[in-house]
């Protein structure tokens, strides 16, 4: 039981439940099945991106370019769909993923091969990818009536009265869970982030893992490019601006240590859910809009303080008293 209570994922789950109950008292409408289903749908993209960001954070890096990558991939397929509305939607999804992956590989190569620090690389590509959207779109928007019916239909598909987006997030959760816990690749990411020197001793090729981690982050950014555009039925230069910070917050709240090598897939999802809940619940309980940003920031900070407090290390022992 004690072990259970010190489990970070459990604490996070409890916080979400308590939050849900508290919001329920203030506004009973918020905890109806349909409204909770809406929150889940609304948080799905955040969950997917947080999971892929987690892979990068595990190896002591960060990908700041995800939101720009998402927006650029989304814009490129939107433009294509206005020219070729007859193509099936799967083409667009696949293309979006490919574009995202290429953009991710570029990050990885810059960091691993050209040795540009990750923060500089992704800060640079954050601007470059966003800037390219203006270039390809001439600064114009693609409106909902310009997309083909097919393009937008998939996103509104429902199963067991839960949205396509939600089920996709569940699928990504399972895939990343297996990847990180049940493949050599995933376990090597943990060892590389946990103790890079020791990882070299056992022959792990750091550069390969950096490039692969950024490629995965790019792949899911590309996937979310399609999801975002289809869900909001609009592609513009401004979509998802600043969203990378929400994604990183979700990881940190979920207990993914920015020092690398620590964090669970479940924790990451719970972190994203908590942030999704805060974003949706604060308007529902009549908190002034002026306060919302500050309050959600404060909650994130408190979560980080709890994380660092539980991470204090032991002193080495010289003298054995017995």
């Amino acid at each position: 039981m004690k072990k259970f209570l010190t489990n970070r994922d459990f604490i996070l789950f409890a916080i979400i439940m308590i939050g849900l109950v508290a919001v329920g008292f203030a506004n009973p409408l918020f905890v109806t099945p349909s409204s909770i289903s809406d929150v889940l749908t609304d948080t799905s993209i955040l969950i997917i991106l947080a999971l892929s960001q987690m892979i990068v954070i595990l190896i002591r890096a960060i990908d700041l370019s995800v939101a720009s990558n998402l927006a650029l991939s989304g814009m490129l397929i939107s433009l294509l769909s206005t020219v070729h509305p007859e193509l099936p939607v799967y083409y667009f999804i696949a293309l979006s993923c490919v574009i995202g992956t290429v953009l991710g590989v570029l990050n990885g190569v810059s960091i691993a091969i050209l040795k540009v620090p990750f923060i500089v690389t992704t800060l640079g590509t954050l601007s470059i990818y966003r800037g390219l959207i203006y270039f390809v779109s001439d600064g114009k928007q693609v409106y909902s009536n310009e997309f083909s019916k097919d393009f937008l239909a998939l996103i509104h598909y429902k199963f067991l009265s839960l949205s396509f987006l939600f089920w996709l997030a569940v699928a990504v959760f399972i895939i990343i869970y297996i990847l990180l816990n049940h493949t050599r690749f995933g376990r090597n990411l943990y060892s590389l982030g946990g103790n890079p020197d020791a990882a070299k001793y056992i022959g792990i090729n750091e550069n390969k893992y950096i490039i692969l981690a950024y490629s995965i982050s790019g792949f899911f950014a590309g996937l979310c490019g399609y999801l975002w555009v289809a869900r909001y039925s609009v592609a513009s230069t401004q979509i998802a601006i600043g969203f990378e910070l929400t994604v990183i917050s979700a990881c940190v709240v979920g207990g993914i240590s920015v020092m690398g090598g620590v964090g669970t897939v479940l924790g990451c999802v719970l972190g994203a859910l908590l942030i999704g809940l805060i974003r949706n619940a604060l308007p529902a309980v009549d908190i002034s809009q002026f306060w919302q940003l500050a309050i959600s920031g404060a909650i994130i900070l408190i979560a980080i303080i709890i994380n660092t407090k539980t991470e204090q290390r032991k002193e080495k022992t010289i003298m054995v008293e017995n």
Partner: protein
Amino acid sequence: MKLELKNISKNFHGVKALQNVDFQLKDNSIHALLGENGAGKSTLVKILCGVYQPDSGSIHLNNQEQTISDPAISLSLGISAIHQESVMFDELTVTENIFIGNHLTKSNRLIDWTLMESKTKQLLEELEANIEPNEKIKDLSIAQRHIVQISRSLIHDADIVIMDEPTASLSQKEINELYTIIRNLKKQNKSIIFISHKLDEVMEVCDDFTVLRDGELIKSDIITNTDKDQLITHMAGREVNQIFPKNNVTIENEIFQVRDFYKKTQFKDINFNLRKKEILGFYGLVGSGRTEIMKSIFGITKPDEGDIHFKDQKINIAKPSDAINQGIVYLSEERQQLGMTGLMSVKDNINMAIMERNSQFYIMDTLKEIKNASAMQEKLNIKVSYWSQLTQSLSGGNQQKTVIAKWLSTKPEVLILDEPTKGIDVRSKSAVHEFMGELVGEGMSIIMISSELPEILGMCDRVVVMYKGLIKEILNVKNASSEQIVKLASGES
């Protein structure tokens, strides 16, 4: 012959770490690798692990010549090292640390956790170790960590297991358990290279021995042909071939006393005094608690019990600035990390600790700073081309002088030097020594931690010998022999 090293040499920036060393490891043997700190043992081990490449010489495994160009190759050749410093993954479980880099997978290429866990459990049971496979490494004791590392080499099916001071911080019971494991390894047809400073244990466990000194092979034989005293002579028996320019100063009255210092798991019953114009040495193995005591005196960490008396008054040091204000300064062993800021200029580094004295109303007086810096440069003979030169561009010796200059600027009365000549070339070394002589001549008192016996014998008036967090004895250097000091420091008497 399982392993044979022929004529291995390795230089680091002109310092000879190994010179034409031969080493032979027989099948089925536990081979002790002996020598003082800095004798070249670690370099030899790192060459075997593929971390360093030898400058010359050859490595033969089972009579075949091999090139070990990186750690992965060393592992695949069946060489596995249990390092002193941790190469484990604190946040991962025991099972995973044992299988790391070598995860077992099912036919669908997913990791087979059940199989790995049951193998781990079986292995730990064979070793009679009371460790759960799914415990995290950070929750284990040091002895348990050693066992996990040993298990790792067993899983990798290592032929040669290198153990670098495996018993350094274990209790007697844990040590006995470890011996059983080592003897079991031998029965399984493996050879072990055993590095230890404890000669009793070497005599008990090992079959063969090799002694290195100053990077040279001194003696290699079977253990029954020697005894402890001979080994000590082999290890320590060098002539003091450096000149230690110690001025003849008259030592005056006691000015500084440490009383009953105690910190849990670090050190206990620490009592010593320091007299004016004296150089007091602290000798002991790496990790015997010397640095930890000095950090507590300087206020970096807090001792659980104990007082410091300075000039007949009890003083309270809660943080480093208290110590500096009293005139006590500490020069860290890790000068690069803790002593200086490489990206700041030499002048700024020298003046870093006396900003208050060099400023008026919080505005820095550059003229005063330059005055102090040039006085220090002259005194210490720091080779610097211009004042705004970055400290990191200086040589190791000049960096060390810059750090010393920084602390001397505070006009201290008690100077604590932690390995002041570690990793600097011979000429800078003697410059530092010369300078220490001058300082005591001017009335300063010095505490010097050193792992180099000649330095202790050449520079100090008295030496405090430490072993595992305890003071074994305080000797007058004039009447002490190097054998006696080595004996005390390895817990032999």
